[in-house]
């Protein structure tokens, strides 16, 4: 095949779609190659859509994008075996358009996004796997697919092929994924009638609730759980470091089953019917795990580049932003007539450094390490905090001062006074 493109985008998730859309919109000749039957057929996410990142690509996306509910309430729960302590932020402000966050169902949302990419003029080819990158010396010049006459060439290739990025590994741009740098998340979608969801979560219309959870539900593994409300379903899931799953021998589905049986969660799912079960790897290695993201003739965006802010459960917005910025870098170089060499493509990294993407990634760069080395945050503290709450809230004739002393003793007994200060310091440093 002699056909030449300005750019080839590998993958049709949020990063790939954002890149392909931005490139095509600027009039570049773009080819996007997706392995799945259609964009979204293989893509898995919680899923929350952050409006800001998409607005910067498709400002009027709200007009026709398939959105489930806009988020008006966020709950943070720390769970013990039997109990739950936490906080809620709910604001009527979140119910004033334009809404900031939405729950979405990715198979529908991605298909919508993919249609926008086609309409913008990109050539989108699905059910096609890119096997290798064509190199001219050190420079990427094209891709080889699994189809007959399967080679195709371009000035630049954007790798948006997801967390596993087999291509980047094969080409030596990235090492093997380390089990401590990825979380394995499993989730289920449970059907519930709209009215039941509204009643159960105290919402109406398209309002939605997001619950993030930590504590005993991960059985000492580094990870979190979540529950999101969709229009006519509830998504529930849990994710922990792959290295922890390996070490503990706990099966992910068993962890989810046990979480669903928690007395605080069970009533929220009661009467539901499970409709979907999916699993996915999430790159959670943070800033330190980010590989080289550009080189001669190539750029990397989204999960392939490990762009996930695990602390704030953000990923798709980083994917969209890196995809867009990658495209903008290519567009600018094209306009200036510059070649797609590493020194020129370095503008991509520079632009990301100045954006929230790298700033956030950098801010939490030590969190994975601190969490990995300090399991008390997933074991002792959830127990201590809920015990403290129970002690204080149980009215049994014991005076409050005695109760407080008992709580203090429980804490120092478990972690020692020095340990408590050290833990606080570690957290402050990691999240500072």
């Amino acid at each position, binding site marked *: 095949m002699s056909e030449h493109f300005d750019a080839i985008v590998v993958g049709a998730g949020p990063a790939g779609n954002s890149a392909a859309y931005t490139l095509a919109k600027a009039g570049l000749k773009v080819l996007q190659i997706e392995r799945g039957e*259609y964009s979204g057929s293989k893509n898995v996410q919680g899923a929350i859509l952050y409006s800001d990142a998409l607005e910067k690509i498709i400002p009027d996306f709200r007009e026709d994008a398939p959105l489930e509910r806009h988020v008006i309430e966020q709950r943070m729960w720390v769970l013990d075996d039997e109990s739950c302590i936490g906080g809620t932020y709910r604001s009527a402000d979140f119910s004033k358009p334009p809404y900031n966050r939405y729950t979405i169902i990715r198979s529908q949302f991605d298909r919508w996004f993919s249609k926008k990419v086609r309409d913008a003029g990109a050539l989108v080819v699905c059910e096609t796997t890119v096997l290798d990158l064509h190199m001219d010396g050190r420079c990427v010049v094209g891709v080889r*697919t699994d189809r*007959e006459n399967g080679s*195709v060439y371009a000035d630049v290739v954007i790798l948006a092929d997801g967390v596993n990025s087999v291509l980047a590994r094969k080409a030596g741009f990235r090492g093997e994924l380390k089990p401590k740098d990825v979380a394995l998340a499993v989730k289920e979608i449970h*059907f519930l009638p709209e009215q039941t969801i509204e009643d159960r979560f105290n919402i109406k219309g398209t309002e939605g609730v997001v619950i993030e959870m930590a504590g005993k539900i991960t059985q000492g593994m580094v990870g979190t759980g979540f529950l999101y409300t969709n229009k006519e379903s509830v998504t529930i899931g849990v994710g922990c470091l792959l290295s922890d799953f390996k070490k503990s021998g706990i099966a992910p589905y068993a962890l989810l089953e046990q979480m669903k049986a928690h007395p605080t969660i069970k009533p929220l799912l009661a009467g539901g019917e499970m409709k979907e079960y999916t699993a996915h790897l999430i790159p959670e290695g943070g800033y330190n795990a980010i590989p080289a993201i550009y080189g001669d003739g190539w750029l990397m965006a989204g999960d392939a580049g490990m762009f996930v802010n695990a602390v704030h459960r953000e990923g798709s917005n980083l994917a969209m932003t890196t995809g867009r910025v990658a495209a903008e870098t290519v567009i600018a170089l094209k306009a200036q007539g510059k070649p797609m060499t590493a020194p020129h493509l370095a503008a991509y990294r520079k632009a990301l450094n100045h954006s929230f993407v790298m700033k956030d990634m950098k801010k939490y760069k030590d969190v994975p390490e601190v969490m990995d080395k300090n399991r008390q945050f997933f074991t002792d503290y959830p127990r201590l905090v809920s015990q403290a709450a129970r002690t204080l809230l149980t009215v049994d004739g014991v005076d409050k001062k005695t109760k407080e002393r008992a709580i203090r003793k429980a804490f120092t007994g478990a972690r020692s006074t020095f340990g408590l200060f050290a833990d606080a310091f570690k957290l402050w440093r990691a999240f500072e």
Partner: protein
Amino acid sequence: MHILVCIKQVPDSAQIRVHPVTNTIMRQGVPAIVNPYDLYALEEALRLKDRYRGRVTALCMGPPQAEVALRKALAFGADEAILLTDRAFAGADTLATSYALSAAIRQVHRSLPIDLVFAGKQTIDGDTAQVGPGIATRLDMQLLTYVSKIVSLDLAAREIVVHRRSEGGVQVLKTRLPALVTVLEGINEMRFASLTDMFRAERHPLTIWNKDDARIEDATKVGLKGSPTAVSKVFAPTPTNRRAEIIETHGGQPIDLAATLVAKLFSSRPDVAFAINPSLTPDRRSL
């Protein structure tokens, strides 16, 4: 030679869900696929084209989203693709569908005469197997259903010989062209399109016809108006309460396990047990 292939976009029945409250089929979020039987029809048409040369036209009636199904047909090698789409077609049963499709086929025939029409044996959503025969009847074509093999095609003599699966055997049938053939699953194995074909499929302009383009004169014969079939109720079958049972080994030998299993099977079906060995009375279940 000109072959027309009828394809339909259907919800992937493996992923279909019934709304627990309203009992209606939830189409939202269920991926649409090309009716699997139609892909065998398409591949068979493409194989004849490979052998005898000529053209293959894919025809699909459905909503605008059905474009995806036609693009797939183009990728596999169809030369043309026609999407028959009109709000007036909504709610069509097999009678109205075959009416609209035969009008469109007649219209295609006017510009390039058709020798063969191919279709899958049935669709996986309706499962009626009526539309193919309906078209043949309306167009006064020879009809060959449940075809498991195309033995020969003689374009000069205008004859086709096929194997048709029927109850208790295979019929070898010869008929004259033009004919409508509905094919069985497994008649062939679908090809894998080349990247060049994928590009062509994406870029090929689709022919989109509404009812006027297809020269449908009688609007009362299409869509809901032209459909005497009425769906009175849709319901999910009540799940049967059969449970799997695990037979514990307790460290026993395989032969003991087998004996326990056979005894259990016999006890649930004493009639079978009796037929096999009349001496096994219900009271003497153990082997």
